[in-house]
Structures are given as structure tokens and as C-alpha cells.
């Protein structure tokens, strides 16, 4: 496998997929085609944003995950819990009861991801100041956005801030903490509870960093169910629950404007993958003016709406706002041990260079690409231009692209077929065969 290849956490469950094409129509990078009645995701184009997962009526878009069984491979079992997980629970369930249920499920240590924000924010402010000539600096927080820029806005790759996200900082901290307690690195298992697929993909092949620092990723919807089971089946008898709550800033970090509010200068926060994409178009054209810091999140309401979060995003935001307000009022400033590792973590906070992986080019060679582009223009002019999707591609434009790249044929278009039949160049049977190659046998099944 190409070591630079994207790892993907989303895949199509071919048993469940009905080839209904809902996913194909919502993919922001046009990565999906229907072939033989099944959705196929192009790994080069997919950014793991999860739009397809949300749109699928058949639950056929699956998300890979690690099993809790994997905990048994380690002597120290650490759960990295993001604040949006705590935000799934209303006041009916105390934070202590959630922690305690996680202990019952096998974790020795529960560490809230956003405790790492304390270290990150200091470095981030420094970074933004030192690189203030680069406009805009773009947050690397959301891995789906980072991948979107890599594939669709290659000119902006160098604007991405090369600092690790809070979960990586917290993981580095937890591992070092236990190494200092006398454990070896491979005895320590760090499991991140993820709100989305993009963060799984990033954990398995982090962008701009060659080593993974998480040992496993547990999906939030799964662990949510397990936690509530424990609570409802009489609760946990786990006695010592040590809650180290992140700061007010940390609690709101993963929400929209969670990062942006703390940065000086002209700061904009955009959420939702379509809006992010549209905004980046403007930025690439030099149309948005000089922006100092751009906070971009693939989901509307940011991580509160991650595809693996079971709760309603607005209620999650409300819960977290309440928790942050409470934390803000509290006079006791609890300085966690992470502070004693500040220097150690700061030295390890930067990522390697982030590579562009453009998907738009029609050929590596410029002359060849110009040739193909001319063909594409011709093909496109012959298509009906209604983006109906009946060819198994999301738009006439994407079919034209498939045709010039020899990944599709013009006869996939039913309008073209009617014309061909009328002009005697194709038989009805041939047309039926082409349609079945795209959609499978759908009528009279």
C-alpha cells in the first residue's frame, strides 16, 4: 500500500446498498458513482466528511471501528474523551456517572481530550503571530477540511496551520505520563472516542505526520449505548472517579467559533462542508480579502453534529455551553498535571509538511491535459446538462470527466441512448444492458 495513501473510515456495505444514489448526490468532491447497482467511493477523492453517511436511507455507509476487546492487549487502558461526548448527556446523568460507566467498561484512566487545548492555544497564538504574513492561516482542527483542501484547493495547503489537534496532544501527554510511571510504551493503550469518521481516518493516517499516536478509535454512538446500558442496569460500583474538567475554552473548543474567539485579528468561522467549500473558492480567488485566521469545520454546528454523535447537535451545544458557564464561574482554577508537561508537549506539537493531493487534473502532462480538457468541453456540450444522475454519475460534468478519463461511457446517459436508438446506432437491448451495468436489474426484480 502506498504509505501516503489516504486511509478511509467510511465504506459501502454492499449487502445493504440498494444503489439509490442519494449518497452520490451529496458528496462534496463527487467521489461516488453507481456501478452494477452499488455505490462505489473513489478513495482518491473521498475526504471522509460523512455527507454520504447522513444521506443514506439504507444504512449502507459503514464506519470502521476498533472493538473494545482490543483493550485487553494493554496493561494501561486510557479513554480519550472529547467534550462533545460529555455533551451527549443532560443533567439527568452526572459527569461522574458517565466516567464511572466508562471505568466499568474497562478503561483505567479517563482523560478529556480538550485538556490539551491549554497547551495548544498558547502555541497557536504564537504560530499565528509568527506566520501573520500568510493570509489566511487555516486551522488544521477538522481533518475533513484538511483533506478537502489537499484535494480541491491545493494552492491553500501551505496556509494550513501545522499544529496537532487536541486529541494528539492529549495522547502524547497520557503516554508520557504512564511511561514516567514505569510502563513501557507498548503497554499503554490509548483509545479515542470519536464523533466522526474523518477523525478515525486521521488517527489511522494522520495528515502531515508519519506516526500514529492513538492505539484505537471507538465510535461515539457505540460507546454512548454501552455507557447508558451500564447506567441503566444499576450503575457502576466504581468508587474513585477523578474528573479533570477542561477549561471553559477547552469545553467549547470543538464547537463553532471555539478556536476563532481566542485569536486576534480578522477571524472568520465557517461550518458545513458546502459553505466551507464555497468560502475556500473565494479565498483561492483572492476574493475574501486579508483574513488572519480561518476556522473551518465540515459539520454545521461543528463536532456537536459529528456523524457518530447520537444526540441532537443543538442540545449538545446547549449542554456544553452550560458546562462551560459553570466552569467559568468556578473560582478554583484546577491546574492539571498536563501543565507540568507543557514544555515536553510544546516541542512535539508541530506536524510535518502537508502535501497537496489534487484530484482535478486530467493528466500529469500539461499538453495531454489540455487535449483532454478540449475533449471534455466537447463531450459536455453533447450532454443534456440537467444533472439528473441517471448515468450513475452525480452531474453531466462528472460523466464527461469519466468519459475522457476512460472511466465511463457516453451511453450511460439515457438521453444519448434515445438519440442513438432513433438514429439506428443502438438497439433497445444494448441500451438496457448499459442501464443494467450502471443500476443493476431494477425493474421486475
Amino acid at each position: 500500500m502506498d504509505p501516503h495513501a489516504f486511509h478511509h473510515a467510511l465504506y459501502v456495505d454492499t449487502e445493504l446498498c440498494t444503489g439509490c444514489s442519494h449518497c452520490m448526490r451529496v458528496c462534496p468532491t463527487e467521489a461516488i458513482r453507481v456501478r452494477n447497482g452499488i455505490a462505489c467511493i473513489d478513495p482518491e477523492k473521498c475526504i471522509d466528511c460523512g455527507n454520504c453517511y447522513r444521506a443514506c436511507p439504507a444504512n449502507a455507509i459503514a464506519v470502521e471501528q476498533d472493538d473494545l476487546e482490543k483493550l485487553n492487549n494493554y496493561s494501561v487502558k486510557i479513554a480519550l474523551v472529547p467534550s462533545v461526548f460529555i455533551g451527549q448527556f443532560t443533567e439527568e446523568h452526572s459527569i461522574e456517572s458517565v466516567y464511572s460507566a466508562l471505568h466499568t467498561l474497562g478503561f483505567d484512566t479517563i482523560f478529556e481530550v480538550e485538556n490539551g487545548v491549554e497547551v495548544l492555544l498558547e502555541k497557536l497564538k504564537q504560530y499565528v503571530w509568527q506566520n501573520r504574513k500568510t493570509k489566511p492561516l487555516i486551522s488544521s482542527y477538522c481533518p475533513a477540511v484538511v483533506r478537502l483542501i489537499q484535494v480541491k484547493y491545493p494552492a491553500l495547503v501551505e496556509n494550513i496551520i501545522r499544529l496537532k489537534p487536541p486529541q494528539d496532544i492529549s495522547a502524547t501527554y497520557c503516554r508520557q505520563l504512564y511511561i514516567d510511571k514505569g510502563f513501557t510504551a507498548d503497554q499503554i493503550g490509548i483509545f479515542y472516542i470519536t464523533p466522526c469518521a474523518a477523525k478515525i481516518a486521521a488517527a489511522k493516517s494522520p495528515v502531515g505526520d508519519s506516526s500514529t499516536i492513538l492505539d484505537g478509535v471507538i465510535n461515539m454512538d457505540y460507546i454512548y449505548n454501552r455507557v447508558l446500558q451500564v447506567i441503566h442496569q444499576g450503575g457502576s460500583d466504581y468508587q474513585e472517579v477523578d474528573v479533570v474538567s477542561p477549561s471553559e475554552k477547552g469545553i467549547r473548543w470543538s464547537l463553532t467559533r471555539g478556536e476563532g474567539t481566542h485569536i486576534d485579528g480578522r477571524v472568520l468561522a465557517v461550518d458545513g462542508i458546502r459553505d466551507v467549500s464555497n468560502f475556500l473558492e473565494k479565498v483561492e480567488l483572492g476574493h475574501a480579502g486579508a483574513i488572519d485566521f480561518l476556522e473551518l469545520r465540515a459539520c454545521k454546528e461543528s463536532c456537536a453534529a459529528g456523524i457518530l454523535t447520537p444526540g441532537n447537535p443543538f442540545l449538545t451545544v446547549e449542554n456544553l455551553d452550560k458546562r462551560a458557564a459553570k466552569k467559568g464561574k468556578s473560582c478554583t482554577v484546577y491546574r492539571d498535571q498536563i501543565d507540568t508537561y507543557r514544555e515536553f508537549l510544546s516541542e512535539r506539537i508541530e506536524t510535518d509538511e502537508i502535501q497537496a493531493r489534487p484530484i482535478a487534473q486530467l493528466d500529469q502532462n500539461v499538453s495531454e491535459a489540455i487535449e483532454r480538457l478540449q475533449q471534455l468541453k466537447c463531450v459536455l456540450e453533447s450532454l443534456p446538462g440537467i444533472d439528473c444522475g441517471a448515468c450513475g454519475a452525480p452531474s453531466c460534468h462528472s460523466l464527461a470527466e469519466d468519459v475522457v478519463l476512460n472511466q465511463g461511457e457516453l451511453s450511460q446517459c439515457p438521453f444519448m441512448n434515445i438519440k442513438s436508438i432513433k438514429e439506428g446506432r443502438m438497439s433497445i437491448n444494448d441500451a438496457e444492458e448499459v442501464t443494467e451495468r450502471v443500476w443493476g436489474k431494477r425493474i421486475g426484480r
Partner: protein
Amino acid sequence: MKLDYEIKGGDFASAGSASSQVKKVLARLNLDPKLVRKTVVALYEAEVNVVAHAWSGQISVDIDPSRIIISIKDKGPGIASIDRAMEKGYSTASQKVRDMGFGAGMGLPNIKNNTDKMSISSVIEEGTHLQFENYIR
């Protein structure tokens, strides 16, 4: 390969649509992303100039494997002093245009900064012809 676009004077809402389309075309050609960005930034400035000052304009883009040539011809008032228009911060834009966030007087210098070759000629009360080139590799 040649591409043509029309610009309507005064249509600020649509300013940038040609550069946006040209950007999509250039992205197809496996060019250096920086070259693409420079080219579209220059074209966007030129488009806004036509929208802000002229009555109508025509863009023609010519791409071959060695260079991108873009020509923008407009029908409009023309530029009285090209030397002054090339100065950073100089602008003849009306207050109305400035209020819309355009007309900061950075247009021509910004185009020059983002292109390898640029030439401009103008006839008062007839129009302006701007042409620039960016070399591929």
C-alpha cells in the same frame, strides 16, 4: 485552447464569475497551484476593473503547454494616465464604487505582481486593452 467570457459593466454581483470558471479550467491541467492562484487573482482584479469603470468587456484566455495568455478588452472611458494607474493606492473609482468595497487603487499593481508579462493600452472615451501572460514551468 481558447476560452471566452463576457463582462458586464456595473454588475458587481457577478464580478469574479469568469475568474472562478478559469480557475476550474486551470485546475484540470496539473499546473503548479501557485501559478493557478496568481493567474486567477490577476484575472479577478482585471474583471473588477472592467465592472467598476467600463461599460462592457471581453475576456479571452489562450492556454498552450508553455503559457497562459489572458486578454481583457473593454469599452469604456479609458485610462488618462496609465503611469498613475500603476501606482499603488491611486484610483479614479467613484465614491459609490468605493462604498461597495472596491476601488482601493490596487488593481493594476496587483495584476503586475501576479503575472510574468503585462501590457496595457488605452484610448480615452473608447476603452482599454490589458493583456498579461504567465509562463508554465
